[in-house]
Structure formats: structure tokens, C-alpha cells
């Protein structure tokens, strides 16, 4: 009860339990365009940012996607790939991406609806769409940071950048990771 600032208690009460740091990220293959799919495990070797969001064209996501689109060059400085995921269909994603001039893929968690969002604990059963949830995966496909935002609050990118910084080779000197990259 310490956090009395939370202004969205009602929605917090319904929030999901998302996968936490240390969990291997469930693999998936989703459509990124009407004729192409993208498989998460194909991105091994790079950090991956998964940004689940409720819906294309909704006012808060508009801000969030525009923001991430703008920050993309900084994400790429860490070699990271950004993937947006919602239950919208590919044609809707295509229209949204064109409308917002997006430079990163939007994946369609459309059929079976919300299956990938559910696997990450980021699906709102009562609403039928994804949570506003962020995951940063390391190059081995392990979740290193996750964050669930109230559905109406744009989480920004500070947390993502902090997580990427902690993965970066510069600060990983003392890392205890047993994995060897070849």
C-alpha cells in the first residue's frame, strides 16, 4: 500500500503477471507483413526489445510508437532489435506503420488471438488485447528486464535504455554469464 501515487488503481487491480527477468523468452513466429513472418529465435545474438501494446491507432500507443520510432537509432547503437506486438491484424499494422512512418516491425498476435501475449503473461483477458508491457531480451533469448505499465500510461524508454546499457559489453566485464558467443 506504500504507493499511494498510483492513479490507476482500478486498472492495476486487473493487471497481469508478466514474465520476469531470468526467464527464457518463449519463442514465437508471427506475421510482420501480409506475406512475411518473423521468428524470435532468428534474432539470437542481438538484444531484442519486445513492446506489447493494446492497439494500433489508440492515443497513448500513438505516442509510444512515435517515441520508439524516434529513439530507434539509440536502440540500434546497442545492436538491439525492437518489435512491436499487438492483436491487430497485418493490414491494420500496415496502415498504422505507414501513417506513423514507423521504421520497426509490428507483429500480429492475431491467430490464435493473443497467444504470444498470453505466453508472456501480457494479455488482458477481460479486454481482449495485450497489456502495455516491455521486455528486454539478451542475445541468448533470456529476459533480462520486464516492465508492466498501466494500460493508459506511456512507459517511455528510460527503462529500456538502462536495461540495454547493463547488457552492453562495456559493462558486462564482470558478468557471470557462462555463455560463450561465437
Amino acid at each position, binding site marked *: 500500500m506504500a504507493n499511494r501515487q498510483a492513479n490507476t488503481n482500478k486498472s492495476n487491480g486487473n493487471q497481469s503477471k508478466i514474465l520476469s527477468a531470468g526467464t527464457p523468452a518463449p519463442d514465437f513466429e508471427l506475421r510482420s507483413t501480409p506475406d512475411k513472418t518473423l521468428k524470435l529465435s532468428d534474432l539470437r545474438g542481438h538484444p531484442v526489445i519486445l513492446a506489447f501494446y493494446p492497439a494500433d491507432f489508440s492515443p497513448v500507443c500513438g*505516442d509510444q510508437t512515435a517515441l520508439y520510432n524516434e*529513439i530507434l537509432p539509440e536502440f540500434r547503437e546497442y545492436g538491439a532489435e525492437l518489435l512491436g506486438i499487438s492483436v491487430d491484424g497485418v493490414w491494420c499494422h500496415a496502415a498504422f506503420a505507414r501513417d506513423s512512418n514507423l521504421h520497426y516491425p509490428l507483429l500480429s498476435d492475431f491467430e490464435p488471438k493473443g497467444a504470444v501475449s498470453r505466453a508472456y503473461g501480457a494479455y488482458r483477458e477481460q479486454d481482449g488485447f495485450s497489456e502495455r508491457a516491455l521486455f528486454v531480451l539478451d542475445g541468448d533469448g533470456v529476459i533480462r528486464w520486464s516492465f508492466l505499465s498501466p494500460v493508459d500510461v506511456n512507459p517511455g524508454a528510460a*527503462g529500456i535504455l538502462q536495461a540495454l546499457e547493463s547488457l552492453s559489453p562495456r559493462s558486462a566485464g564482470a558478468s557471470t554469464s557462462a555463455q560463450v558467443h561465437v
Partner: protein
Amino acid sequence: MTLNELVNPVSERDHITGSLDAPVILVEYGDFECPHCGRAYPIVKAAQRALGDELAVVYRHFPLAEAHPHATLAAEAAEAAGGQRKFWPMHDMLFEHQDALEEEDLVAYADALGLDRVRFARELASGMYAQRVRDDFRGGVRSGVNGTPTFFINGARFDGNWGAPDEFIAVLAQALASR
């Protein structure tokens, strides 16, 4: 988690109206082409009138260039005007003319504000202030700026409703009272 605190404290580097020692410092991360920032502009002015010297206002750049193709150059224009000690008059001019931000418009505003037009146009064309604008943007991202405008009151991100002037002024007055 302290994600939503200013990582770059307000300093001499900033454009500020009022004193660095003012009890309440409002930092705005804004975009000159953003309609919401245009809506916030008179509300910030109203807050300045209401709180007088107790409030200092800092403006930092957060151009969402992919959505607003004129925003970055407009931000650089404000900096170029700042180079001639006219940052705030240009800031006001830009928010009052958000629908006319082509390069020739910017030079015309410099003229209207009595700036050295040749120097202004040269500095704008050379990209001399691009890095400064980018630095503001990067600092904003790391401080938790999540759209425009984003306000920080005495270093903490304000997530409430700035769109209602009375409410916004009340929040600032509260920050003053709690000093």
C-alpha cells in the same frame, strides 16, 4: 525505481526564464510542431503570471522528427536565436506560428525579432545547433520523457493533467508550499 527523474539537473546550460534559485522550477520537454505543446504554451504563460518570481521555466527540445518534419529545424532556429540572446522571443514566435515552420519562415521570424539575419541563416543552414538539440533529446529519453509535452516539476516527472490551467497552477502552487 527512479526512472522518471531528470537525469540532467537544470543548470547554466539551460534556457530559463526566472532564477536558477527559484523555489519551483518547471522543465518542459517540447516540440515546436507538436499541437499539444502549442496548447500547453498559453497554459505555461498563465502559470508564470500566477506564480511570478517563485516559478522558473526551462525549455528543452524533444523534436519528434518522424512525426513532425519541421520540428528539428525549428528547435535549431530557437537555439540560433538563443545565440543572439533571443531564445524566448523565438520560442514564443514559433509556438504562435506552428503552421509555418519552413526554413524561409524561420528566417523571416529572425528578421522580425531584429536578429542578424545573415548570421542566423548561416548558423541554421550549417547545422551548428543540431548536436545541442540531440543532446536535449537524449537527456529527455533517459529522464523518462514519454511524449510531448512532458513536464518536470522540481525534477520529478509530472504525470497529471496539464491541460486544465487551474489544476496545473494548483499543482505548481503546492510544489511551492511544500518547499
